[in-house]
């Protein structure tokens, strides 16, 4: 095979991305004595002022990418904290208005687990089912609204499927009813344009490390007009206008700022390049018999492709593809034996859900990487099907649903 590929090949950009070298340079400029190491909250000297200036410049870069006011950006430790701050922050602040929340079954755990926690605190949560394409429709949201609904939390791009929800449609319904609308956009930045000056969204969570920035930093957009108020979840000094205390991590913040600045500059080119890798991959892989694309192919981002290989078990396929870094479902659940809850919510049978693999491409994926991966997949699927009693039954024309399985 080609000598130009470096093994193992990274095909798991939706789980995290490498830091762009330009971002790494920026980070390292903000650490040591000869760099910009000051505490941005120090008002009494130049070290503090310079650090504050860097933090505010980064804030502008983040705001620029999503077209909002920099004063609407609150730094957090990542999208998980941003989700927690948004959901618990709204629920706690506005609980006198009602204690009902609407979210979906295919949200990231960073949204589902805070919702579960609020249920323990006396809130009621409706978990919407996606349609079979993996989308949460505005109609589904509309039908779930009650008198006491205070918050709707629906993700932008699903991390396992790459499907894109209609934020405008859902947001308009929320606005009409005066309900706050939070969006987890961890997978969106640098992939598709977001314009918060027109989108009817009140809160939006961002992550740096999905967009070539460092781990451990994220942000929450909190709309100023109409004003959205949240109860802080971390107290201790009143940083970030009281919404999130704690000394700002200047190096992480400038890293996120630089990553988002580059994302804005290069999104159009990245999109074209990744679309062509996606098409090449998709066209080739769809020639394999009995495979199923999970999520609406016409309504998804091109950097994520989730495929079920029928009659092959997912973990064994990942093991057979040892030179390719991919995941089955989200990295947070891939250590467990459960099939992905997202694919189950789509109504996929357990065996198809557990035979699914998520391939995700990124800025540093090459055409050679894609070619090599395709060769390996074809080989591995052939071999594992040769080994599969289910494939044998399929070839013999036996309907697996009619077999009396001995479950254990």
């Amino acid at each position: 095979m080609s000598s130009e590929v470096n093994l193992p090949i990274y095909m798991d950009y939706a789980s995290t991305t490498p830091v762009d070298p330009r971002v790494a340079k920026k980070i390292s400029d903000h650490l040591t004595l000869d760099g910009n190491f000051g505490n941005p909250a120090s008002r009494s000297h130049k070290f503090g002022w310079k650090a504050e200036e860097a933090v505010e410049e980064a804030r502008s870069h983040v705001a620029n990418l999503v077209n909002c006011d920099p004063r609407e950006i609150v730094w957090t430790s990542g999208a998980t904290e941003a989700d927690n701050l948004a959901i618990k922050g709204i629920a706690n602040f506005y609980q006198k208005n009602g204690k009902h929340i609407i979210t979906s079954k295919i949200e990231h755990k960073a949204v589902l687990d805070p919702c579960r926690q609020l249920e323990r605190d006396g809130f009621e949560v409706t978990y919407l089912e996606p349609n079979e394409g993996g989308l949460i429709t505005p109609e589904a949201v509309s039908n779930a609204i009650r008198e006491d609904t205070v918050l709707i939390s629906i993700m932008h791009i699903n991390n396992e499927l790459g499907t894109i929800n209609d934020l405008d449609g859902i947001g308009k319904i929320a606005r009409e009813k005066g309900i706050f609308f939070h969006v987890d956009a961890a997978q969106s930045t640098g992939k598709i344009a977001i314009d918060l000056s027109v989108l009817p969204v009140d809160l939006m969570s961002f992550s740096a490390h999905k967009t070539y920035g460092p781990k451990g930093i994220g942000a929450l957009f909190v709309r100023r007009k109409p004003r959205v108020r949240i109860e802080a979840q971390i107290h201790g000094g009143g940083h970030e206008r009281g919404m999130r205390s704690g000394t700002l991590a200047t190096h992480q913040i400038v890293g996120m700022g630089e990553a988002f600045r580059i994302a804005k500059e290069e999104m159009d080119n990245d999109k074209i390049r990744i679309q062509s890798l996606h098409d090449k991959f998709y066209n080739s892989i769809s020639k394999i018999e009995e495979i199923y694309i999970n999520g609406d192919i016409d309504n998804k981002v091109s950097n994520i492709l989730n495929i079920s290989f029928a009659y092959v078990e997912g973990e064994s396929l990942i093991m057979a593809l040892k030179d390719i870094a991919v995941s089955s479902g989200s990295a947070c659940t891939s250590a467990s034996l459960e099939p992905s809850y997202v694919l189950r919510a789509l109504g996929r049978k357990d065996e198809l859900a557990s035979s699914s693999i998520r391939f995700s491409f990124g800025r540093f994926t090459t055409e050679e990487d894609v070619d090599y991966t395709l060769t390996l997949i074809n080989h591995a699927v052939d071999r594992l099907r040769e080994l599969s009693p289910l494939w044998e039954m399929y070839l013999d024309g036996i309907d697996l649903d009619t077999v009396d399985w001995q479950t254990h």
Partner: protein
Amino acid sequence: MAYSKKVVDKFENTINEPAKYNVGRFDPKEMNVGTGMVGAPACGDVMKLQIKCESQGNTHIIKDVKFKTYGCGSAIASSSELVEMLIGKTLEEAKEIKNIDIVEALELPPIKIHCSVLAEDSIKQAIQDYEQKQ
């Protein structure tokens, strides 16, 4: 999932050289073939094990074995390991094989013990099928 080197090697050898590692099938209708199939697709693993025996008086010796497994890496490695243990044994000896033998041979992690249980069940069922035909 951190597997032992033994599981990884067994899995890779089996998928790379299926014929050598007894992947395949016998005609289940043959009188000297016993077939066992356990597990369910919804549970994530299905093992099909077939033994071909030769009788010498009342003693039946397992002359050849074929298997196919749908499942995780350790399920595939477990069945492949079991197959090697079976060839040449009498049915009485084969009945003595316990899941713990596979666990020890492959150093299976606790979370994957059920793969070895499944393997043990598959041989029991194959022997039962064979004995019913005699």
